[in-house]
């Protein structure tokens, strides 16, 4: 593929230092480098302000492929190096890009690849379900593992300690007080003030990457739709996009437009639910009741029009499994008009509320620098000045035929994240209308073509939490050999550890909700 000006410049600058092989695979720019230059590449990339977006490994016979995905100005490329399994070692990119930190720890736990110089090489995804010297994503590791009796709790994880007069520790989770996913938070506090927070996730690790192996495209799409249930459309779309790339398949225009409508409906449903929940966390129940009511109406329309409240399994390899009748289009448009009026009322009440103002402004502050350093994406990034949205900056069908207005704030507090999300609801409503207006008659699904063995694809979409990256490689016989989904939460969770600092412990729930990370999408 042809590269843009910055990429060409960057490549020529690299060439004095690093040998880069440009490999042509359809729809992805792939740069392959020697393993010893792995970290050096990251240093040069950072100098050029490239964003580190994802990292994962693959095993191919007795070699490991290590991949990293970078982005600049909406242009993505895949960086790859190959190492031998006799010495699975590589310099760490996490020393340069904090965003790569947990990703490398995940690769370390799952593949047994050592990242030399990693600033924090404690285990991450591994608790006690498998032993230290076995690695679930290696081909010789059986999918059933070798569980003996009850899996022990992960008692001796070396948390960071702090000492001093009046410092105390609060362990929270994995089972939380509300109806919420499990995870552990370790606080150090003085009085009410949070000195430090450490997240310990991995409790809902379900072996998604491993059980993806050997699946057919249909079956993989179902699994992808359950990486994170609230993002079923987003993940399913990214995975299908990756599979379609590998198969060299174009989806019909009507299917693309319906995918767009589904994705925007998912965005609106989640934003409404979360804005209500954020208000509820500061005891403003009025908003919670309003937003859960509006969300419920919205989900009922989903059930009526698309056949599923959360829109699971509506996107399938090659297209979509649902259609929109004229009557449904009219219904959706009417619903949108009603929702706009309702939202205007509720938001006005929120905006004028002094108690919300008191609790949400300046709380949970994330600076632009920290947001950039962690590669924060989605509304968390956009509330802290990170002006990026895949739909606008690397548009895919159907977003390539509309203008996506991206909401941006730079205050970085909880209120900013709420406002960004409110504006995103408004944009999404308009997008749905535009997609409906552009709906063309035609097929809903292209006929599947079996991809060649070894072919791969990289699906990148803007889910409601932000950029989702999904990598897929096929084996022979239409079977998946590798699936790696990078949920936006993987980049956003570390930001929570920073944005709670100097807030009071009782404000943690609202800080957490304002980020709204997925545990399942993180733990895989």
């Amino acid at each position: 593929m042809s590269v843009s000006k910055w990429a060409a410049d960057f490549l020529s600058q690299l060439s004095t230092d690093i040998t880069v092989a440009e490999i042509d695979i359809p729809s992805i720019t792939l740069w392959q480098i020697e393993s010893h230059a792995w970290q050096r590449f990251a240093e040069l990339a950072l100098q050029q302000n490239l964003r580190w977006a994802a990292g994962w490994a693959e095993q191919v016979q007795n070699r490991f492929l290590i991949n990293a995905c970078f982005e600049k100005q909406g242009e993505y490329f895949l960086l790859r190096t190959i190492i031998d399994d006799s010495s699975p070692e590589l310099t760490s990119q996490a020393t340069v890009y904090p965003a790569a930190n947990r990703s490398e720890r995940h690769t370390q736990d799952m593949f047994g690849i050592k990242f030399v110089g990693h600033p924090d090489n404690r285990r991450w995804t591994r608790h006690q379900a498998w032993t230290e010297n076995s690695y679930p994503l290696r081909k010789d590791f059986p999918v059933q593992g070798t569980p003996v009796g009850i899996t022990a709790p992960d008692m001796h994880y070396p948390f960071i300690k702090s000492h001093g007069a009046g410092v105390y520790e609060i362990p929270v989770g994995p089972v939380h007080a509300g109806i919420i996913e499990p995870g552990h938070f370790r606080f150090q506090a003085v009085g009410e003030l949070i000195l430090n927070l450490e997240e310990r996730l991995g409790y809902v690790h379900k072996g998604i990457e491993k059980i993806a192996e050997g699946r057919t495209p249909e079956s993989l799409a179902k699994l992808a739709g359950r990486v994170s249930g609230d993002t079923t459309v987003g993940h399913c779309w990214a995975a299908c996009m990756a599979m379609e790339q590998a198969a060299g398949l174009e989806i019909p225009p009507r299917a693309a437009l319906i995918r767009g409508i589904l994705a925007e409906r998912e965005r609106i449903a989640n934003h409404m639910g979360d804005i209500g929940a954020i208000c509820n966390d500061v005891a403003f129940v009025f908003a919670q009741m309003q937003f859960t009511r509006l969300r419920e109406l919205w989900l009922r329309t989903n059930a009526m029009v698309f056949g599923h409240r959360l829109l699971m399994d509506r996107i399938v390899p090659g297209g979509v499994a649902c259609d929109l009748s004229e009557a449904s289009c009219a219904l959706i448009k009417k619903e949108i008009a009603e929702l706009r009026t309702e939202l205007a009322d509720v938001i006005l009440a929120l905006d004028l509320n002094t108690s919300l103002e008191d609790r949400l402004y300046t709380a949970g502050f994330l600076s632009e620098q920290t947001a950039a350093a962690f590669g924060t994406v989605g509304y968390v990034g956009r509330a802290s000045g990170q002006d990026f949205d895949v739909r606008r900056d690397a548009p895919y069908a159907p977003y390539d035929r509309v203008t996506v207005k991206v909401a941006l704030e730079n205050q970085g507090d909880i209120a900013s994240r709420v406002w960004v999300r409110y504006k995103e609801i408004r944009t999404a409503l308009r997008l749905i209308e535009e997609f409906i207006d552009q709906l063309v008659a035609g097929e809903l699904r292209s006929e599947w073509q079996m991809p060649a063995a070894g072919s791969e694809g990289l699906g990148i979409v803007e889910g409601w939490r932000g950029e989702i990256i999904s990598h897929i490689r096929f084996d022979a016989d239409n079977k998946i050999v590798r699936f790696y989904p990078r949920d936006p939460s993987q980049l956003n969770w570390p930001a929570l550890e920073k944005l709670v600092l100097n807030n009071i412990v009782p404000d943690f729930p609202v800080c957490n909700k304002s980020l709204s990370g997925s545990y399942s999408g993180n733990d895989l």
Partner: protein
Amino acid sequence: MLKILKKILTTGVVTERFSMRSHVARGNEDELEQLGIEIKRHIDKQFSGSIAVRQVDAGSCNGCELEIHALNNPFYDIERFGVHFVASPRHADVLLVTGPVSRHMQTALLRTYEATPNPKWVVAAGDCAACGGEFGESYASCGAVSNVIPVDAVIPGCPPTPLALMKGLLGLMGVKK
């Protein structure tokens, strides 16, 4: 200030009216109402008026949680039938468990079960909790909740709708005569 209050008050009133109307318009009010009354009848008889439910996510994808949340929205408002969600297993009559049980959550689930006072009931909500669902059993997943703790009732669905959840809870009452 007056303006704000007025706004909130008027919007608040709109809620009630709107929710009732949309209810009828979307046609499951009768079923919901009936279900609720059934549930309430059983709860009155067997649990002296109310049951306390502790929800435990033992490894779900979070889809089930979203629908359990919905039980508390103004449409279903399950509390009016005597079902309320509590923050600690020590206060609970019923554990509502979702997800395949991830191995990393196995001990946590067992401990939550032990912390729940007797008599107690376990409801496995969602296909994953019922049979392992899309995730099944693996090195990372114990599969169905019944592989880890005794289960009294199962609510299928991926995820079960709020109505299915209500029916499931009612089913539990039927079992525990």
